[in-house]
């Protein structure tokens, strides 16, 4: 079965349909053939550890709502992935969001103790936008990209839930 996967660049992954996952098997990526063995799975079947080319690799896979993998962690190091085509399926990939979103959301619950920009202000990627106070920490909210502050959606000292929209950069 053939998968087209974008991860840093486009890769063609081919997994033998007859593979027996109880034993070592081979997976071809582009032109290289990799020895793979499943080493550890959770009770629900999630793969925890693979042996790839005789190297132990603890993995985690983050999926989006429909179950498609969007992120792979190799021993904690994150890789964005996008499966764009699966041979022999009617799978139609979603159009990927390549752009960095300008919507800034609260990444954890807390109090918005300070907003340091105004609507219309020009910001760079990394410019501090405000402070979200949560846990013992002052969490500085930084701009995800360069642009203009289009709107500010919260007031100073407002209590936010995780995911609340704070402001928009355009």
């Amino acid at each position, binding site marked *: 079965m053939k998968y087209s*996967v974008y991860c840093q660049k486009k890769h063609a992954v081919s997994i033998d349909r007859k593979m027996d996952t109880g034993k070592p098997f081979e997976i071809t990526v582009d032109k290289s053939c990799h020895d793979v063995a499943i080493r550890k799975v959770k009770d629900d079947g999630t793969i925890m550890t*693979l042996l790839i080319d005789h190297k132990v690799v603890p993995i985690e896979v983050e999926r989006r709502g429909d179950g498609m993998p969007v992120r792979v962690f190799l021993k904690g190091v994150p890789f964005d992935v996008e499966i764009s085509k699966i041979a022999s399926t009617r*799978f139609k990939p979603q159009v990927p969001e390549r752009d960095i979103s300008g919507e800034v959301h609260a990444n954890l619950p807390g109090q918005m103790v300070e907003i340091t920009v105004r609507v219309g202000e020009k910001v760079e990627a990394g410019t501090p936008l405000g402070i979200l106070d949560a846990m013992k920490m002052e*969490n500085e909210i930084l701009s995800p990209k360069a642009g203009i502050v289009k709107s500010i959606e919260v007031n100073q000292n407002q209590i936010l839930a995780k995911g609340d929209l704070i402001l928009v950069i355009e």
Partner: protein
Amino acid sequence: MFKRVLVANRGLIQANCVRAIKELGATAIAVYEGDDRDSAGVRNADEAYEIKINDPRIRPYLDLEQIVQLAEDLKVDAVHPGYGFLAQNGKFARELERRGIKLIAPRVEGKFNLSNKHEVKEAAMRAGLPVLKGSEVFSDRERLEPAAKSLNFPLVMKAAHGYGGIGMKVIPDMRRLESAFEHVQATCRKFFMNSPEVFLEQYLSDPRHIEFPVLRDEAGRTTVFPELECPLQRRFQKLVLETPSPFIDRILRTKLQSEIRVLCERLGVFGFASVEFLISDGTAYFLEINGYIQPSHTATTLLTGVDLLKEQIRLLSGEPLNMRRNEFSCDRHVINTYIYAEDPENDFAPSPGQVDRLYLPFGEEVVLQTSISSGAKISPFYDPMIAKLLVRGRDRDEAILKMGIALEEFFVEGLKTNIPLMRGVMKSDAFRDGTLSPEHMKNPEKRNQFIESLKSAKDSEIAALVASLALHSDGETLKRMEVLETDDNAQSVLGAATRWLKPRKPRRPR
């Protein structure tokens, strides 16, 4: 020595204090709030008492009254505050003193109080040490603008009684002045600082940050240990630390050590203190003295073989400093990384949760102190530091290499941590060359470069392989993708996937 010592803290410093107190032959008493009941310090204490949330706005470890009352009821003769929390709280010290209980924090003769950054700064100035240009201390809003106008931006505003990076705010320009003032004053109240006073100081954007641990007994015998350098912080908290500093020469070290002796004598410091400097353009500016033990005490111990925590307690109990001056060597190099349960990709947002899997680094000259174990839950209420990882090498290059490999072995599943980021830092030229700056952590792109540097072309192939395999082995998801009924190949894959794995719901790691 003391007979009964209460430890008013949690986490790593609690466990370390309990150990030190027991090694000194005293009874170690821990306090804990419910979630911390299984921690090492509680487990190892001779006695452990639960502290309750009496006021929902006050975390139990900050609940001065409750802890003072407990100390009195339990007839302890001393309290160790660890770092943070109540370590610099003047009221706490006085309330204990009134009950005849010693707080294990540096006591100073006369009017000086080490917790007041500004008073200490003035004393240093009078002792002839270079200090950064700054304002007087004030707490009235009217004095804010005049104070700022006499200085050049960028400035940093500091709460006079701040600690551990709390109550500090960088002010890039006049526009941010007011909000910073409000913010810092709110922080003073929230953390029960001794006063809401603040002062302004010139902000150096790219200094070296070094500190010297000091032990000094009642008779004035003083030992100044080799300096530690902190090349990388986020939010004024340490990410990496090394000792000795690779960028301080012997002449500067000796000069600063003797200045520190003079200053500590003038201030009458007694116990443990950590004297901090910022170095910029060849000048070492005195910054502050921290009067509480620092998380970095472990690095000094690994370098010199002197257990600062134990010596601190011993000295405060009135015993003499017992150290031959040349007893400790600094011909090795120690690197210390601080591991936090937080997400560097997401502006270091804390990442509380449960540890699903844990692989620890180990081996010669690798020291790990951690408060977590497999299955442990990380509370969202406190400092997210979960481990200190230290290595000792024969030289700095060896230590960097060792740290990189130890971090590679260290794996925590279930939480986001800064382990990959630290691996990237150890690989970077900037760390090797000593050209790291705060910008490296503040700018998401620069920060991300550390992590990107870990990814080889082969890794990207492997990640693609893993994503495909995860999907391939998951019959349910594939089914939803509408595998073509007519294709034997796809069908048999679906069949195989469903056979060897129970159907499962898609799940996301936290």
